[in-house]
Protein backbone atom coordinates (compact mmCIF):
# COMPACT_ATOMS: atom_id res chain seq x y z
CA UNK A 1 0.00 0.00 0.00
CA UNK A 2 2.94 2.40 0.60
CA UNK A 3 5.18 3.73 -2.13
CA UNK A 4 8.83 2.77 -2.07
CA UNK A 5 9.73 6.31 -1.10
CA UNK A 6 7.51 6.14 1.95
CA UNK A 7 9.05 2.85 3.00
CA UNK A 8 12.57 4.16 2.44
CA UNK A 9 11.84 7.34 4.38
CA UNK A 10 10.25 5.31 7.17
CA UNK A 11 13.00 2.74 7.48
CA UNK A 12 15.77 5.37 7.38
CA UNK A 13 14.25 8.53 8.77
CA UNK A 14 16.32 11.70 9.05
CA UNK A 15 16.33 14.39 11.73
CA UNK A 16 15.26 12.00 14.47
CA UNK A 17 15.57 12.97 18.10
CA UNK A 18 15.10 15.50 20.82
CA UNK A 19 16.71 18.93 20.67
CA UNK A 20 17.63 20.18 24.12
CA UNK A 21 18.17 23.80 23.14
CA UNK A 22 15.34 24.22 20.63
CA UNK A 23 14.07 27.73 19.89
CA UNK A 24 10.60 26.49 19.15
CA UNK A 25 8.78 23.21 19.85
CA UNK A 26 5.45 22.05 18.46
CA UNK A 27 3.52 18.96 19.47
CA UNK A 28 0.27 17.72 17.93
CA UNK A 29 -1.83 14.59 18.14
CA UNK A 30 -2.57 12.32 21.07
CA UNK A 31 -2.14 8.67 22.02
CA UNK A 32 -5.88 8.22 21.58
CA UNK A 33 -5.61 9.22 17.95
CA UNK A 34 -2.61 6.97 17.60
CA UNK A 35 -0.18 9.63 16.36
CA UNK A 36 1.89 12.19 18.24
CA UNK A 37 4.32 14.43 16.40
CA UNK A 38 6.81 16.73 18.05
CA UNK A 39 8.94 19.15 16.02
CA UNK A 40 11.98 21.00 17.37
CA UNK A 41 13.31 24.08 15.56
CA UNK A 42 16.59 25.94 15.77
CA UNK A 43 16.03 29.36 14.23
CA UNK A 44 18.75 31.70 12.94
CA UNK A 45 17.46 35.06 11.72
CA UNK A 46 14.21 34.09 10.02
CA UNK A 47 15.56 30.79 8.78
CA UNK A 48 15.32 27.27 10.12
CA UNK A 49 18.91 26.36 10.87
CA UNK A 50 18.19 22.95 12.35
CA UNK A 51 15.18 20.75 12.88
CA UNK A 52 14.44 17.50 14.72
CA UNK A 53 11.33 15.39 15.23
CA UNK A 54 9.95 12.73 17.49
CA UNK A 55 6.95 10.72 16.35
CA UNK A 56 4.73 8.09 17.85
CA UNK A 57 2.68 6.65 15.05
CA UNK A 58 2.44 4.55 11.97
CA UNK A 59 4.90 4.31 9.12
CA UNK A 60 3.20 7.15 7.27
CA UNK A 61 3.48 9.41 10.31
CA UNK A 62 7.18 8.70 10.70
CA UNK A 63 7.86 9.06 6.98
CA UNK A 64 5.87 12.32 6.85
CA UNK A 65 7.81 13.74 9.82
CA UNK A 66 11.10 12.82 8.28
CA UNK A 67 10.19 14.18 4.87
CA UNK A 68 8.67 17.39 6.23
CA UNK A 69 11.68 18.15 8.40
CA UNK A 70 14.03 17.57 5.47
CA UNK A 71 11.95 19.93 3.38
CA UNK A 72 11.87 22.84 5.83
CA UNK A 73 15.53 22.81 6.80
CA UNK A 74 16.98 26.07 5.55
CA UNK A 75 13.60 27.59 4.73
CA UNK A 76 12.44 30.94 6.10
CA UNK A 77 9.79 30.58 8.76
CA UNK A 78 7.24 32.06 6.33
CA UNK A 79 8.15 29.46 3.73
CA UNK A 80 7.95 26.66 6.29
CA UNK A 81 4.59 27.97 7.48
CA UNK A 82 3.18 27.71 4.01
CA UNK A 83 4.43 24.16 3.46
CA UNK A 84 1.21 22.27 2.82
CA UNK A 85 0.55 18.67 3.65
CA UNK A 86 0.08 18.17 -0.08
CA UNK A 87 3.72 19.15 -0.61
CA UNK A 88 4.76 16.45 1.83
CA UNK A 89 2.53 13.84 0.22
CA UNK A 90 3.93 14.75 -3.18
CA UNK A 91 7.50 14.41 -2.00
CA UNK A 92 6.65 10.99 -0.61
CA UNK A 93 5.28 9.91 -3.97
CA UNK A 94 1.79 9.67 -2.54
CA UNK A 95 0.09 8.32 0.57
CA UNK A 96 -2.91 5.99 0.83
CA UNK A 97 -6.14 7.98 1.41
CA UNK A 98 -6.44 6.66 4.97
CA UNK A 99 -2.95 8.01 5.70
CA UNK A 100 -3.16 11.53 4.35
CA UNK A 101 -3.97 12.82 7.84
CA UNK A 102 -0.39 11.93 8.83
CA UNK A 103 0.96 14.53 6.45
CA UNK A 104 -1.53 17.03 7.85
CA UNK A 105 -0.16 16.28 11.28
CA UNK A 106 3.37 17.02 10.06
CA UNK A 107 2.50 20.46 8.73
CA UNK A 108 0.42 21.14 11.84
CA UNK A 109 3.41 20.28 14.06
CA UNK A 110 5.66 22.60 12.07
CA UNK A 111 3.19 25.45 12.43
CA UNK A 112 2.88 24.76 16.13
CA UNK A 113 6.67 24.92 16.47
CA UNK A 114 6.82 28.18 14.49
CA UNK A 115 4.12 29.75 16.66
CA UNK A 116 5.95 28.53 19.76
CA UNK A 117 9.06 30.36 18.49
CA UNK A 118 6.94 33.49 17.73
CA UNK A 119 5.39 33.44 21.16
CA UNK A 120 8.79 33.11 22.78
CA UNK A 121 9.87 36.10 20.69
CA UNK A 122 6.86 38.05 21.97
CA UNK A 123 5.30 37.99 18.49
CA UNK A 124 1.61 37.23 17.96
CA UNK A 125 1.03 33.69 16.69
CA UNK A 126 -0.04 33.23 13.08
CA UNK A 127 -3.52 31.83 12.53
CA UNK A 128 -3.16 28.12 11.96
CA UNK A 129 -6.83 27.21 11.69
CA UNK A 130 -7.83 24.07 13.51
CA UNK A 131 -7.79 20.71 11.88
CA UNK A 132 -8.11 18.37 14.82
CA UNK A 133 -6.58 14.93 14.77
CA UNK A 134 -9.29 12.33 14.51
CA UNK A 135 -10.92 13.44 11.26
CA UNK A 136 -14.20 12.01 10.16
CA UNK A 137 -13.82 8.90 8.04
CA UNK A 138 -14.84 9.48 4.45
CA UNK A 139 -16.94 6.69 2.97
CA UNK A 140 -14.56 4.71 0.81
CA UNK A 141 -17.01 3.86 -1.92
CA UNK A 142 -20.53 4.98 -2.74
Amino acid at each position, binding site marked *: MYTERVIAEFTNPENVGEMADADGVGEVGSPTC*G*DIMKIYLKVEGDRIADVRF*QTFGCAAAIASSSMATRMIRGMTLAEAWSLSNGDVVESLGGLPP*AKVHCSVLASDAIRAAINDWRTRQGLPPWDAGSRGCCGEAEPENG
Partner: protein
Amino acid sequence: MNDQADRPVYMDHAATTFMKPEVLAAMAPYFSQYFGNPSSLYRFSGEPRKGVDAARRQVAAALGANPEEIYFCAGGSEADNWAIKGVALANRKRGDHIITSAIEHHAVLHTCEWLKRQGFLVTYLPVDEFGRVDPGSVEEAITDRTTLVSVMTANNEIGTIQPVAEIGRVAHDHGALFHTDAVQAVGAVPIDVDAMNIDLLSLSGHKFYGPKGTGALYVRRGTRLENLVHGGGQERGRRAGTENVPGIVGLGRAIELATADIEGHNRRIAAMRDRLIRGVLGSIPDARLNGHPTERLANNANFSFRYVEGESILLLLDAQGICASTGSACSSGSLEPSHVLLATGLSHEEAHGSLRLTLGDANTEDDVDYVLSVLPDVIGRLRRISPLTPPGAGVREVD
Protein backbone atom coordinates in the same frame (compact mmCIF):
# COMPACT_ATOMS: atom_id res chain seq x y z
CA MET B 1 15.46 -4.89 3.29
CA ASN B 2 16.29 -8.52 2.95
CA ASP B 3 15.13 -10.66 0.09
CA GLN B 4 13.18 -13.17 2.06
CA ALA B 5 9.92 -11.51 1.02
CA ASP B 6 8.86 -14.46 -1.12
CA ARG B 7 9.47 -16.96 1.63
CA PRO B 8 9.46 -14.91 4.77
CA VAL B 9 9.33 -16.10 8.33
CA TYR B 10 5.58 -16.27 8.38
CA MET B 11 4.05 -15.76 11.83
CA ASP B 12 0.57 -14.68 10.85
CA HIS B 13 -1.24 -18.01 10.82
CA ALA B 14 -4.24 -16.52 12.58
CA ALA B 15 -4.77 -14.38 9.46
CA THR B 16 -4.53 -17.26 7.04
CA THR B 17 -2.55 -20.43 6.45
CA PHE B 18 -0.94 -22.02 3.44
CA MET B 19 -2.82 -24.95 2.00
CA LYS B 20 -1.30 -28.34 2.78
CA PRO B 21 -0.24 -30.53 -0.15
CA GLU B 22 -2.53 -33.31 1.09
CA VAL B 23 -5.45 -30.91 0.85
CA LEU B 24 -4.65 -29.87 -2.70
CA ALA B 25 -4.17 -33.52 -3.61
CA ALA B 26 -7.62 -34.32 -2.27
CA MET B 27 -9.17 -31.47 -4.24
CA ALA B 28 -7.35 -32.06 -7.50
CA PRO B 29 -9.64 -34.64 -9.14
CA TYR B 30 -12.70 -32.47 -8.60
CA PHE B 31 -11.64 -29.45 -10.65
CA SER B 32 -11.81 -30.85 -14.16
CA GLN B 33 -12.46 -34.58 -13.90
CA TYR B 34 -15.23 -35.09 -11.32
CA PHE B 35 -16.59 -31.64 -12.02
CA GLY B 36 -20.27 -32.57 -12.12
CA ASN B 37 -22.95 -30.93 -10.06
CA PRO B 38 -23.45 -33.18 -7.02
CA SER B 39 -27.18 -32.53 -7.05
CA SER B 40 -27.72 -33.88 -10.56
CA LEU B 41 -29.36 -37.20 -11.22
CA TYR B 42 -26.92 -38.87 -13.58
CA ARG B 43 -24.21 -41.24 -12.44
CA PHE B 44 -21.55 -38.69 -13.35
CA SER B 45 -22.65 -36.84 -10.21
CA GLY B 46 -21.76 -39.81 -8.10
CA GLU B 47 -18.12 -38.93 -7.47
CA PRO B 48 -18.76 -35.28 -6.60
CA ARG B 49 -21.63 -36.33 -4.36
CA LYS B 50 -19.48 -38.93 -2.64
CA GLY B 51 -16.78 -36.31 -2.18
CA VAL B 52 -19.19 -33.91 -0.53
CA ASP B 53 -20.69 -36.62 1.64
CA ALA B 54 -17.27 -37.74 2.82
CA ALA B 55 -16.29 -34.17 3.67
CA ARG B 56 -19.50 -33.75 5.63
CA ARG B 57 -18.61 -36.83 7.65
CA GLN B 58 -15.09 -35.52 8.19
CA VAL B 59 -16.33 -32.19 9.51
CA ALA B 60 -18.95 -33.87 11.67
CA ALA B 61 -16.37 -36.24 13.13
CA ALA B 62 -14.13 -33.31 14.06
CA LEU B 63 -16.95 -31.70 16.02
CA GLY B 64 -18.66 -34.72 17.53
CA ALA B 65 -21.69 -33.92 15.39
CA ASN B 66 -23.88 -35.78 12.92
CA PRO B 67 -23.19 -35.28 9.24
CA GLU B 68 -26.74 -34.01 8.68
CA GLU B 69 -25.98 -31.17 11.07
CA ILE B 70 -23.15 -29.79 8.90
CA TYR B 71 -23.88 -27.15 6.26
CA PHE B 72 -21.16 -25.98 3.93
CA CYS B 73 -20.80 -22.31 3.07
CA ALA B 74 -18.15 -19.89 1.84
CA GLY B 75 -16.27 -19.01 5.02
CA GLY B 76 -16.27 -17.98 8.63
CA SER B 77 -17.88 -14.61 8.00
CA GLU B 78 -20.78 -16.12 6.11
CA ALA B 79 -21.22 -18.77 8.81
CA ASP B 80 -21.30 -16.10 11.54
CA ASN B 81 -23.76 -13.92 9.61
CA TRP B 82 -25.95 -16.87 8.86
CA ALA B 83 -26.01 -18.26 12.38
CA ILE B 84 -26.74 -14.96 14.09
CA LYS B 85 -29.17 -13.40 11.63
CA GLY B 86 -30.70 -16.78 10.97
CA VAL B 87 -31.48 -17.53 14.61
CA ALA B 88 -32.49 -13.96 15.43
CA LEU B 89 -34.92 -13.66 12.53
CA ALA B 90 -36.36 -17.17 12.79
CA ASN B 91 -37.04 -16.79 16.51
CA ARG B 92 -38.18 -13.19 16.48
CA LYS B 93 -41.62 -14.13 17.71
CA ARG B 94 -40.06 -15.69 20.79
CA GLY B 95 -37.71 -12.85 21.62
CA ASP B 96 -35.66 -9.96 20.35
CA HIS B 97 -32.60 -10.05 22.58
CA ILE B 98 -29.15 -11.31 21.71
CA ILE B 99 -26.10 -11.62 23.92
CA THR B 100 -22.58 -11.56 22.63
CA SER B 101 -19.20 -10.43 23.92
CA ALA B 102 -17.20 -7.25 23.45
CA ILE B 103 -14.29 -9.12 21.88
CA GLU B 104 -15.98 -10.99 19.06
CA HIS B 105 -14.73 -10.86 15.51
CA HIS B 106 -16.25 -8.15 13.34
CA ALA B 107 -18.19 -10.83 11.46
CA VAL B 108 -20.18 -11.25 14.67
CA LEU B 109 -20.14 -7.66 15.94
CA HIS B 110 -21.15 -6.03 12.67
CA THR B 111 -23.86 -8.62 12.22
CA CYS B 112 -25.18 -7.72 15.66
CA GLU B 113 -25.06 -4.03 14.69
CA TRP B 114 -27.17 -4.86 11.66
CA LEU B 115 -29.67 -6.66 13.86
CA LYS B 116 -29.82 -3.64 16.13
CA ARG B 117 -30.82 -1.57 13.12
CA GLN B 118 -33.59 -4.12 12.54
CA GLY B 119 -34.88 -3.48 16.03
CA PHE B 120 -33.13 -6.17 18.06
CA LEU B 121 -31.54 -5.58 21.44
CA VAL B 122 -27.92 -6.61 21.82
CA THR B 123 -25.93 -7.00 25.03
CA TYR B 124 -22.14 -6.96 24.75
CA LEU B 125 -20.61 -8.83 27.65
CA PRO B 126 -17.42 -7.38 29.12
CA VAL B 127 -14.25 -9.41 29.54
CA ASP B 128 -11.62 -9.47 32.24
CA GLU B 129 -8.03 -8.30 31.77
CA PHE B 130 -7.19 -11.61 30.12
CA GLY B 131 -10.09 -11.40 27.69
CA ARG B 132 -12.29 -13.98 29.40
CA VAL B 133 -16.08 -13.80 29.53
CA ASP B 134 -17.53 -14.68 32.92
CA PRO B 135 -20.38 -17.19 32.53
CA GLY B 136 -21.94 -15.40 35.49
CA SER B 137 -22.28 -12.30 33.35
CA VAL B 138 -24.33 -14.28 30.86
CA GLU B 139 -26.58 -15.34 33.72
CA GLU B 140 -27.05 -11.69 34.65
CA ALA B 141 -27.71 -10.46 31.14
CA ILE B 142 -30.06 -13.19 29.99
CA THR B 143 -33.80 -12.53 29.98
CA ASP B 144 -37.00 -14.14 28.75
CA ARG B 145 -36.51 -12.32 25.49
CA THR B 146 -33.03 -13.72 24.83
CA THR B 147 -33.03 -16.13 21.91
CA LEU B 148 -29.30 -16.37 21.24
CA VAL B 149 -26.00 -16.20 23.06
CA SER B 150 -22.94 -15.98 20.79
CA VAL B 151 -19.47 -16.16 22.31
CA MET B 152 -16.39 -17.21 20.38
CA THR B 153 -14.45 -20.34 21.30
CA ALA B 154 -11.09 -18.57 21.04
CA ASN B 155 -10.17 -15.02 20.20
CA ASN B 156 -8.32 -14.25 17.00
CA GLU B 157 -6.20 -11.42 18.40
CA ILE B 158 -5.16 -12.45 21.86
CA GLY B 159 -5.88 -16.17 21.65
CA THR B 160 -7.93 -16.33 24.83
CA ILE B 161 -10.06 -19.47 25.08
CA GLN B 162 -13.54 -18.97 26.49
CA PRO B 163 -15.43 -21.21 28.91
CA VAL B 164 -17.88 -22.13 26.17
CA ALA B 165 -19.35 -25.20 27.85
CA GLU B 166 -20.36 -23.10 30.87
CA ILE B 167 -21.69 -20.27 28.74
CA GLY B 168 -23.67 -22.72 26.65
CA ARG B 169 -25.07 -24.25 29.83
CA VAL B 170 -26.36 -20.88 31.02
CA ALA B 171 -27.93 -20.22 27.62
CA HIS B 172 -29.69 -23.58 27.67
CA ASP B 173 -30.87 -23.16 31.24
CA HIS B 174 -32.76 -20.12 30.01
CA GLY B 175 -34.05 -21.61 26.78
CA ALA B 176 -31.70 -19.64 24.55
CA LEU B 177 -29.60 -21.07 21.75
CA PHE B 178 -25.81 -20.97 21.91
CA HIS B 179 -23.62 -20.12 18.94
CA THR B 180 -19.85 -20.10 18.99
CA ASP B 181 -17.42 -18.73 16.42
CA ALA B 182 -14.79 -21.47 16.41
CA VAL B 183 -12.93 -20.11 13.40
CA GLN B 184 -9.69 -19.81 15.38
CA ALA B 185 -10.29 -22.83 17.55
CA VAL B 186 -10.56 -25.68 15.07
CA GLY B 187 -7.42 -27.78 15.27
CA ALA B 188 -6.33 -26.13 18.51
CA VAL B 189 -9.23 -26.63 20.92
CA PRO B 190 -10.87 -30.08 20.94
CA ILE B 191 -14.54 -29.58 20.09
CA ASP B 192 -17.49 -31.69 21.16
CA VAL B 193 -20.71 -29.88 20.37
CA ASP B 194 -22.73 -31.96 22.80
CA ALA B 195 -20.36 -31.76 25.76
CA MET B 196 -19.86 -28.05 25.08
CA ASN B 197 -23.57 -27.23 24.79
CA ILE B 198 -23.14 -25.76 21.34
CA ASP B 199 -26.16 -25.34 19.05
CA LEU B 200 -24.42 -23.56 16.21
CA LEU B 201 -20.71 -23.35 15.38
CA SER B 202 -18.85 -21.46 12.65
CA LEU B 203 -15.60 -22.57 11.07
CA SER B 204 -13.44 -21.47 8.15
CA GLY B 205 -11.20 -23.70 6.03
CA HIS B 206 -8.25 -21.39 5.43
CA LYS B 207 -7.49 -21.11 9.14
CA PHE B 208 -6.41 -24.75 9.35
CA TYR B 209 -4.47 -25.30 6.12
CA GLY B 210 -7.60 -25.77 4.03
CA PRO B 211 -8.88 -23.80 1.07
CA LYS B 212 -9.85 -20.15 1.23
CA GLY B 213 -13.50 -19.39 0.52
CA THR B 214 -14.76 -22.47 2.34
CA GLY B 215 -16.52 -22.78 5.65
CA ALA B 216 -19.21 -24.63 7.48
CA LEU B 217 -21.92 -24.03 9.97
CA TYR B 218 -22.86 -26.72 12.44
CA VAL B 219 -26.58 -26.51 13.24
CA ARG B 220 -27.98 -28.76 15.92
CA ARG B 221 -30.90 -30.81 14.63
CA GLY B 222 -34.19 -29.05 15.19
CA THR B 223 -32.71 -25.55 15.47
CA ARG B 224 -34.93 -22.83 14.00
CA LEU B 225 -32.77 -20.96 11.53
CA GLU B 226 -33.59 -18.71 8.60
CA ASN B 227 -31.57 -18.98 5.40
CA LEU B 228 -29.05 -16.30 4.58
CA VAL B 229 -28.62 -17.23 0.92
CA HIS B 230 -31.94 -18.14 -0.69
CA GLY B 231 -32.34 -20.02 -3.95
CA GLY B 232 -31.75 -23.60 -5.04
CA GLY B 233 -32.23 -26.60 -2.80
CA GLN B 234 -28.55 -27.29 -2.07
CA GLU B 235 -27.46 -28.19 1.48
CA ARG B 236 -30.90 -29.68 2.09
CA GLY B 237 -32.60 -26.43 1.21
CA ARG B 238 -30.68 -24.34 3.70
CA ARG B 239 -27.87 -22.74 1.73
CA ALA B 240 -28.38 -22.07 -1.95
CA GLY B 241 -25.63 -22.14 -4.55
CA THR B 242 -23.95 -24.81 -6.62
CA GLU B 243 -21.70 -26.71 -4.24
CA ASN B 244 -18.01 -25.78 -4.30
CA VAL B 245 -17.04 -29.44 -4.53
CA PRO B 246 -13.25 -29.08 -4.63
CA GLY B 247 -13.41 -26.58 -1.78
CA ILE B 248 -15.69 -28.78 0.30
CA VAL B 249 -13.50 -31.83 -0.27
CA GLY B 250 -10.43 -29.78 0.69
CA LEU B 251 -12.13 -28.48 3.82
CA GLY B 252 -12.98 -32.03 4.83
CA ARG B 253 -9.45 -33.28 4.35
CA ALA B 254 -7.99 -30.26 6.13
CA ILE B 255 -10.16 -30.61 9.21
CA GLU B 256 -9.35 -34.29 9.37
CA LEU B 257 -5.62 -33.50 9.32
CA ALA B 258 -5.99 -30.61 11.76
CA THR B 259 -7.87 -32.63 14.36
CA ALA B 260 -6.02 -35.92 14.04
CA ASP B 261 -3.64 -35.09 16.90
CA ILE B 262 -4.57 -31.78 18.45
CA GLU B 263 -2.68 -32.51 21.62
CA GLY B 264 0.59 -33.38 19.92
CA HIS B 265 0.25 -30.43 17.61
CA ASN B 266 -0.41 -28.06 20.48
CA ARG B 267 2.52 -29.41 22.44
CA ARG B 268 4.95 -28.75 19.60
CA ILE B 269 3.53 -25.30 18.76
CA ALA B 270 3.13 -24.15 22.34
CA ALA B 271 6.76 -25.00 23.09
CA MET B 272 7.84 -22.56 20.39
CA ARG B 273 5.29 -20.01 21.49
CA ASP B 274 6.46 -20.14 25.10
CA ARG B 275 10.07 -19.70 24.10
CA LEU B 276 9.03 -16.75 21.96
CA ILE B 277 7.09 -15.16 24.80
CA ARG B 278 9.88 -15.66 27.32
CA GLY B 279 12.44 -14.32 24.88
CA VAL B 280 10.48 -11.21 24.05
CA LEU B 281 9.54 -10.34 27.62
CA GLY B 282 13.11 -11.07 28.70
CA SER B 283 14.78 -8.81 26.16
CA ILE B 284 12.36 -5.91 25.77
CA PRO B 285 11.40 -3.72 28.74
CA ASP B 286 7.95 -2.17 29.06
CA ALA B 287 6.45 -5.09 27.16
CA ARG B 288 3.43 -7.09 28.23
CA LEU B 289 1.75 -10.24 27.05
CA ASN B 290 -1.88 -9.71 26.08
CA GLY B 291 -4.45 -12.44 26.59
CA HIS B 292 -4.60 -15.22 29.11
CA PRO B 293 -1.38 -16.71 30.54
CA THR B 294 -2.61 -20.30 30.18
CA GLU B 295 -6.07 -20.39 28.60
CA ARG B 296 -4.78 -19.35 25.21
CA LEU B 297 -4.35 -20.81 21.77
CA ALA B 298 -1.12 -22.75 21.44
CA ASN B 299 0.00 -20.65 18.50
CA ASN B 300 -0.80 -17.16 19.77
CA ALA B 301 1.60 -14.60 21.20
CA ASN B 302 0.31 -11.04 21.49
CA PHE B 303 2.37 -8.26 23.00
CA SER B 304 2.02 -4.59 23.77
CA PHE B 305 5.16 -2.49 23.57
CA ARG B 306 4.82 0.88 25.19
CA TYR B 307 5.75 4.14 23.41
CA VAL B 308 5.53 2.68 19.89
CA GLU B 309 2.82 1.94 17.36
CA GLY B 310 1.98 -1.43 15.86
CA GLU B 311 2.01 -0.73 12.15
CA SER B 312 5.53 0.66 12.44
CA ILE B 313 6.66 -2.49 14.21
CA LEU B 314 5.03 -4.56 11.52
CA LEU B 315 6.73 -2.76 8.67
CA LEU B 316 10.16 -2.87 10.24
CA LEU B 317 9.69 -6.59 10.84
CA ASP B 318 8.57 -6.95 7.25
CA ALA B 319 11.75 -5.23 6.12
CA GLN B 320 13.55 -8.08 7.92
CA GLY B 321 11.38 -10.74 6.29
CA ILE B 322 8.99 -11.39 9.17
CA CYS B 323 5.22 -11.47 8.64
CA ALA B 324 3.22 -10.44 11.69
CA SER B 325 0.09 -8.58 12.57
CA THR B 326 -1.13 -5.80 14.84
CA GLY B 327 -4.40 -4.79 16.40
CA SER B 328 -3.73 -1.23 15.34
CA ALA B 329 -5.72 -0.81 12.17
CA CYS B 330 -5.86 2.16 9.92
CA SER B 331 -9.06 3.87 9.12
CA SER B 332 -9.39 7.26 7.54
CA GLY B 333 -8.42 10.11 9.79
CA SER B 334 -7.08 8.13 12.70
CA LEU B 335 -5.69 4.85 13.87
CA GLU B 336 -8.34 2.53 15.20
CA PRO B 337 -7.04 0.61 18.18
CA SER B 338 -8.16 -2.99 18.58
CA HIS B 339 -11.56 -3.27 20.25
CA VAL B 340 -10.33 -6.49 21.79
CA LEU B 341 -7.35 -4.93 23.54
CA LEU B 342 -9.40 -1.96 24.72
CA ALA B 343 -11.96 -4.39 26.15
CA THR B 344 -9.22 -6.02 28.23
CA GLY B 345 -8.54 -2.65 29.79
CA LEU B 346 -5.51 -1.47 27.83
CA SER B 347 -5.01 2.25 27.26
CA HIS B 348 -5.17 3.54 23.71
CA GLU B 349 -1.42 3.90 23.66
CA GLU B 350 -0.86 0.31 24.78
CA ALA B 351 -3.49 -0.95 22.39
CA HIS B 352 -1.81 0.87 19.51
CA GLY B 353 1.53 -0.71 20.33
CA SER B 354 0.44 -4.30 19.90
CA LEU B 355 2.05 -7.07 17.92
CA ARG B 356 0.54 -10.46 17.17
CA LEU B 357 2.76 -13.39 16.26
CA THR B 358 0.86 -16.58 15.42
CA LEU B 359 2.77 -19.74 14.78
CA GLY B 360 1.95 -22.51 12.37
CA ASP B 361 2.93 -25.91 11.12
CA ALA B 362 5.79 -24.65 8.95
CA ASN B 363 7.48 -22.65 11.69
CA THR B 364 10.68 -23.93 13.25
CA GLU B 365 12.74 -23.13 16.30
CA ASP B 366 15.03 -21.23 13.92
CA ASP B 367 12.16 -18.94 13.06
CA VAL B 368 11.67 -18.19 16.74
CA ASP B 369 15.37 -17.47 17.12
CA TYR B 370 15.29 -15.19 14.13
CA VAL B 371 12.35 -13.18 15.46
CA LEU B 372 14.03 -12.93 18.84
CA SER B 373 17.16 -11.64 17.18
CA VAL B 374 15.32 -8.96 15.21
CA LEU B 375 12.49 -7.72 17.41
CA PRO B 376 14.40 -5.98 20.25
CA ASP B 377 16.25 -3.81 17.77
CA VAL B 378 13.03 -2.94 15.92
CA ILE B 379 11.35 -1.84 19.12
CA GLY B 380 14.48 0.03 20.15
CA ARG B 381 14.64 1.96 16.89
CA LEU B 382 11.02 3.02 17.12
CA ARG B 383 11.37 3.99 20.74
CA ARG B 384 14.28 6.22 19.88
CA ILE B 385 11.95 8.04 17.45
CA SER B 386 9.02 8.26 19.86
CA PRO B 387 8.31 11.35 21.97
CA LEU B 388 6.62 9.11 24.54
CA THR B 389 9.71 7.11 25.44
CA PRO B 390 10.99 8.14 28.87
CA PRO B 391 14.71 8.83 29.04
CA GLY B 392 16.58 5.60 29.53
CA ALA B 393 13.78 3.28 28.45
CA GLY B 394 14.45 1.24 25.40
CA VAL B 395 15.92 -2.17 25.03
CA ARG B 396 17.24 -4.24 27.89
CA GLU B 397 20.66 -5.69 27.27
CA VAL B 398 20.37 -9.40 26.72
CA ASP B 399 22.75 -11.31 28.89
